[in-house]
């Protein structure tokens, strides 16, 4: 098979680095060939804090992926996240010149650049500028105004920006290891591509990816991205809380969280305990289940409440017909669906990548949703031949009518 069809999505996460190798077909479907992963050290809260170690983990993951899928990886799509990433919606407007009535391509470019005239903090750079809707002479909901007559063209854009140096750090980390970075994608955006179908995007949905270091979210209303962002709290925090609260080492805390932890408080029988076995350097311990659950509950609830607060600020929560999709490693916590439904007051589905085929174990694992999503994203925006990252960016953006 020709190289062009192979797409690799790479996510350098806080708990793991994973690279998913997939094949995109002409009909738009994706087949997963192999997944490589490696535990991640050197990344905290979604951002690289130890460059060398992170590079090593990336190398390991890519090596694993190459072996499993039997493909040489030359270029990847990289997911980025971090609490520093912010978003807002902005409208660009352009008045057509007197002598012309018909809207054409260059008006799109004008309206894009008009939407850019906003002040973002000095250290930040634009990551995405996603088109939401066009308006022609005040008529909204216009999907493709090329060829329409009008005097004024406006468009709403969802703009995502983040600290430039941190983003470039991630890109550099991957480039050090070898492959070329074809594009950077804000993680929840990628996740949403495989977790939501077009119908759900139109109805309105919230995608929450609760990973190791961050909780990323994106809100779709009427088929367009209305809000997105990232909270720097994740599974790591839960493990940390358990470790500090129960006075056990991190590794044990992680294990007990995954195996025995539950988000529901008050369901454990009084006195019910979990036994941790004696091992080298660790005397066995008995942990009260209720205490464990309480700690987990507090942290997860707080995270959800913070997220809800953030979403309430823009009040899009009322427009979500398809409810909330929860994915990512933490979505596997027992009882989290119930807690999420309680906090957000809407139906919650714990999901994983949906629209893919191939390695079942890979796409059914919610931890890989983002990396798989990158492949879908690439497929949606891919030109005929992959090129360097900057040409790519320009291509992608012009394809979507973005800046």
């Amino acid at each position: 098979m020709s190289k062009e069809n192979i797409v690799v999505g790479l996510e350098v996460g806080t708990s793991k680095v994973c690279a998913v190798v997939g094949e995109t077909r002409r009909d738009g479907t994706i087949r997963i060939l192999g997944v490589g992963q490696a535990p991640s050290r050197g990344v905290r809260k979604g951002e690289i804090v130890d460059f060398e170690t992170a590079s090593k983990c990336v190398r390991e993951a890519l090596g694993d992926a190459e072996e499993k899928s039997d493909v040489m990886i030359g270029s990847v799509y990289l997911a980025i996240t971090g609490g520093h990433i912010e978003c807002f919606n902005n409208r660009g407007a352009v008045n057509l010149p007197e002598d012309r009535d018909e809207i054409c391509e260059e008006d799109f470019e004008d309206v894009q650049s008009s939407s850019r005239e906003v002040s973002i903090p000095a250290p930040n750079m634009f990551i995405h500028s996603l088109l939401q809707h066009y308006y022609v002479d005040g008529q909204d909901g216009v999907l493709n105004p090329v060829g329409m007559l009008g005097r004024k063209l406006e468009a709403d854009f969802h703009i995502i920006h983040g600290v430039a140096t941190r983003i470039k750090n991630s890109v550099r980390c991957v480039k050090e290891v070898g492959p070329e970075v074809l594009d950077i994608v804000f993680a929840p955006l990628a996740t949403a591509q495989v977790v939501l179908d077009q119908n759900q995007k139109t109805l309105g949905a919230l995608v929450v990816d609760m990973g190791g270091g961050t909780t990323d979210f994106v809100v779709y209303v009427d088929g367009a991205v209305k809000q997105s962002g990232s909270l720097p709290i994740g599974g790591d925090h839960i493990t940390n809380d358990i470790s500090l609260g129960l006075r056990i080492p991190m590794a044990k805390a992680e294990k007990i969280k995954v195996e025995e932890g539950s988000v529901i408080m008050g369901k454990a029988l009084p006195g019910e305990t979990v036994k941790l076995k004696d091992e080298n350097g660790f005397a066995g311990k008995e942990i009260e289940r209720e205490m464990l659950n309480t700690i987990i509950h507090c942290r997860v609830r707080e995270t959800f409440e913070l997220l809800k607060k953030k979403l309430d600020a823009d009040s899009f929560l009322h427009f979500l017909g398809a409810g909330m999709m929860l994915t990512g490693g933490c979505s596997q916590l027992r009882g989290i669906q119930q807690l999420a439904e309680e906090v957000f007051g809407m139906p919650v589905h714990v999901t994983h990548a949906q629209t893919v085929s191939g390695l079942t174990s890979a796409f059914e694992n919610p931890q890989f949703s983002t990396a798989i999503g990158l492949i879908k994203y690439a497929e949606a925006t891919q030109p005929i031949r992959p090129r360097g990252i900057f040409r790519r960016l320009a291509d992608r953006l012009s394809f979507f009518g973005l800046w």
Partner: protein
Amino acid sequence: MIDLQRHLSMSAPLPDVRVRIIGLGGAGSNALDRLMLDGVTGAELIAMNTDVQALTSSVAANKVQLGAVCTRGLGAGGDPEMGYAAAEESMEEIRAAVEGAQLVILCVGMGGGTGSGAARLVGLVARQQGALVVSFATMPFAFEGRRRMAQAEEALAALQSVSDVVVCFDNDRMSDAVSPRAGIHEAFSTADRLISESVRAVLAFTAQKGIVKMGFDDLSTALRGAGRGASRCLFGFGEGEGDNRAHEALARALKSPLMDKGRMLEDAQSVLINVSGGPGMTLNEVQILMEEFGRYVSDTTQILFGTSVDPQLGGRMCVTIISAVPAGDRPLEEAARPAPRQEPAPVAAAEPRPAGEVLPDREEAPAVATPARKMALPEPDLLPAGNGAPQPAAAKAPLPRKSPREAKQAQMQFEPATRGRFEKSEPTIVDGQDLDVPTFLRRNVKKQ
């Protein structure tokens, strides 16, 4: 020097506004000297002191010696009673100095002798004249001792009763603005510079021909509450230039040492913000600035907005922010605090390890106010009534039960390290809380 230019045109007063700026006592004279250095016109500068030497070396045009007889020109010796007596003795001279003034700005350092003792008298005389009195008072450093602080507070209270507006600066806060390695003269000169900036900002309010004008009523509204009891003045001034000047100006204003990075603005009842720029300033920029500013204040805060265009500013944009918040954290939330915390408290009482849990409480006392209110929500179903049940079980639980004292020890060592894995990473601060600290600790959830 550019500042000089700006205020030259800005504070050219309307013919009938007569302004006197009085520097009272040692600190006041220093502030006055700084003002002269930075340049201010449209106001008369008067230095008043008991210490003749200090008075002579002051660069003010007019000088008044207080208490020539009782202090013999040697200063008040840090005794406010002496300062008061000195002022009493020189009442006539003081009266002559403020005669005809419509606005009297009083710069004084609290805690010493002359400033603390004489300030209220000077303010009173000015008031009797019919002038508006705006006082800028500095409070001593904590290391200067409790006696001095007590004197300062008393003097401040007295001053507040005779002033229309009091802007008070804590010297301690100003040490935040200077790097720890800076020389002490730099620290003090920062204090003077701040006073000078704020005085000039206030002066600008009297004379500014703004598009949206600000007047004294706005200033008093913003500082309301600064008169009653302990309160903190927030003052910020920032300038920006270039493409991102709106953002830069606001960022710098918020970085002012007395702004606390904008965190305290949420508690303010009213905030005065003045945006001025050259002729090239656009409505868009002002909008951007105000929108960003809006994020720092709560929904109920009254924003007093003023804007003006000054050709002298050229390509620069400046932002002045003045407000006051009641000191003593968040009184509104204090009320809510005791009630919801009743829930966990009785549970805690029965526990064999109460001492340990008390500590995180104290450490994060103000921040806990908010989460404690949130605790009220999960009460019914999720903080189960079955709280009672696990209690006896807890007593039986095989977890090592140290004596309360020992547990306290362990907890104490714990305190600085409660970020565990996130020790070396940048803290995530939201609403004043460090989210890396475990949630159950911050919310004082009692473990059973």
